[in-house]
């Protein structure tokens, strides 16, 4: 489910790459600065869902097994865990903001931020391999029909070795394509909608800071 939803993210979105990358960072920071406040987490989840046209919610759904883990933990550690769970979902939603753009614009944004070409080309290649790995994983699930721990073990073993062999094949292809670490990226002018997303992210950050400041400011009484 997680792998499938990652592939889902490869479909292009309409937002500008640099805006999405910075907004994702700002929103993650907001959750952290606000000490995982309910309001901030909810705002981040909502904004991401709106900007990605609901695709971030699909990613959240993919992480369902982790929520079960949180619920079990809540039995021992109480209500605080729910707050942590919401913050966890908010951070995933912030990351999923990348789904609102396309991969070429993300690599373009990384190059714009002066991340070395070598790193960017590696990121871009890893993403390009994703559809193949997703289809490999789905095919292996059909073959091994894992229903027991031993079945899952076999599936994992086959997936690991297939991934390694695919990586070797890809490096062979890179040699044949005279690979020289040049990364492909795209940049364009942000539209008004993009700027609105950025401003809303900034507002959430300001709200998060204000919450923290109000906790640390001594009351006058």
């Amino acid at each position: 489910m997680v792998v499938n939803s990652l592939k889902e993210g490869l479909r292009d979105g309409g937002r500008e790459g640099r805006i999405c990358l910075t907004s994702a960072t700002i929103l993650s920071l907001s959750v952290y600065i606000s000490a995982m406040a309910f309001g901030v987490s909810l705002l981040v989840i909502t904004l991401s869902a709106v900007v990605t046209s609901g695709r971030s919610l699909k990613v959240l759904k993919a992480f369902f097994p982790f929520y079960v883990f949180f619920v079990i933990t809540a039995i021992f550690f109480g209500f605080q865990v729910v707050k942590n769970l919401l913050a966890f979902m908010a951070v995933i939603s912030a990351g999923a903001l990348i789904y609102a753009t396309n991969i070429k614009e993300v690599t373009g944004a990384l190059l714009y931020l002066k991340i070395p070409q070598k790193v960017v080309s590696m990121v871009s290649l890893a993403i390009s391999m994703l559809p193949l790995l997703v289809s490999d994983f789905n095919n292996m699930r059909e073959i091994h029909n894992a229903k027991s721990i031993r079945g899952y073990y076999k599936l994992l073993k086959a997936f690991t070795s297939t991934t390694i062999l695919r990586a070797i094949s890809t490096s062979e292809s890179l040699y044949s394509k005279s690979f020289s670490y040049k990364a492909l990226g795209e940049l364009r002018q942000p539209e008004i909608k993009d700027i609105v997303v950025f401003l809303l992210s900034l507002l959430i950050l300001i709200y998060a800071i204000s919450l923290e400041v109000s906790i640390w400011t001594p009351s006058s009484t």
Partner: protein
Amino acid sequence: MIEFSVRSYFYPNGSLGLECFSEKFEGCEFLEGETGSGKTTVLRMMNGLIPEFYGGKLDGFIRAFGKKPNPRDIYYIKQNPEEMVTCLDVIDEVAYPSIQQGKKVSEAKRDAEEVCEEVGIGHLVDRKTYEISTGELQLVEIAAAITSGSKFIVLDEPFAYLSRRNALRVIRIIRDLKHVVSEHRIEFEKYFDRTVSLGLEIKSIGIPETEKGDVVYNGILELREGEVVAITGDNGAGKTMMLKEIAKDMRKKGINFSLFLQHPPYHLTENTVEKEVEGVNREIVTAFGLEGIKNRHPQSLSSGQMRRVAIAKAFKAKILLLDEPSAAQDVNFRKKLVYLLRKFGKTAVIATHDEELVRYCDWRVELW
């Protein structure tokens, strides 16, 4: 021109890759040979993958256009085009090698668009590489090779996963380029100027007629015990999908079967070949040539050998669902496969492009 004078080549793990091979390739050559005869090794030597990338011990020399082979002059296209993919967009994929060679991105993309039009895949430029069929992806990789300005194109079993129609389309496109094609589907040999053989003996194997038993599956198809059925159709017609649907239905009905899909490593989960084929009749193991490699790790084998191990493993079940089992296998394998299926009374559904293999099946389902 590519000139070979190789006395021997050993891969880093010590296995012999090629021995006593002297040849001159001028272009438009068809390279044939049995599985494991060294065809892929020859192709990898043409652009320097061997020994530059793989290492190993080479005794002899290879010269491409009078100098040491390099990927800029000789473009190597792998058997499975999915493993060549480096970009998500078709246009980037076609322009990628030129960009890596130092061409400006805008210039490379303009050239890529022109080449795509020439090759007849202009309609694909706005598509994603993971959305198009294997046949189309093969053409995309050929377009990338042309855009890169390589002097020579080397294709490793390009027709393995292609329908006859798509294979002929590829032949038409590469006709004007200098190329070498290594292939097991020898029915295409006549379209090339010259054949270079690494040793291929076509064996005569008699396929026994068998009595068909009761119906063992009645769902998407009706299958009788001992029946061998072929599913055919163009690339993207849905052969693999149909096989998977049958598998799903059989699973629901509690029928024991084994499913073999195109990529052999999916099936290999043990540490030795012997463990993989445990419980399989020794005659099958011997017929597939697995006796000599029974102590090897399955993932260390060549792709052809891995495929044989995975198919032999599938013989554990009474019903076999096989997707392109004859790809990357020499001409004798298809007869051997049907012979063994008949001899051991197996029921099989085979999705394939291989018309020769279809001839030995009881009946076929043609998908449109």
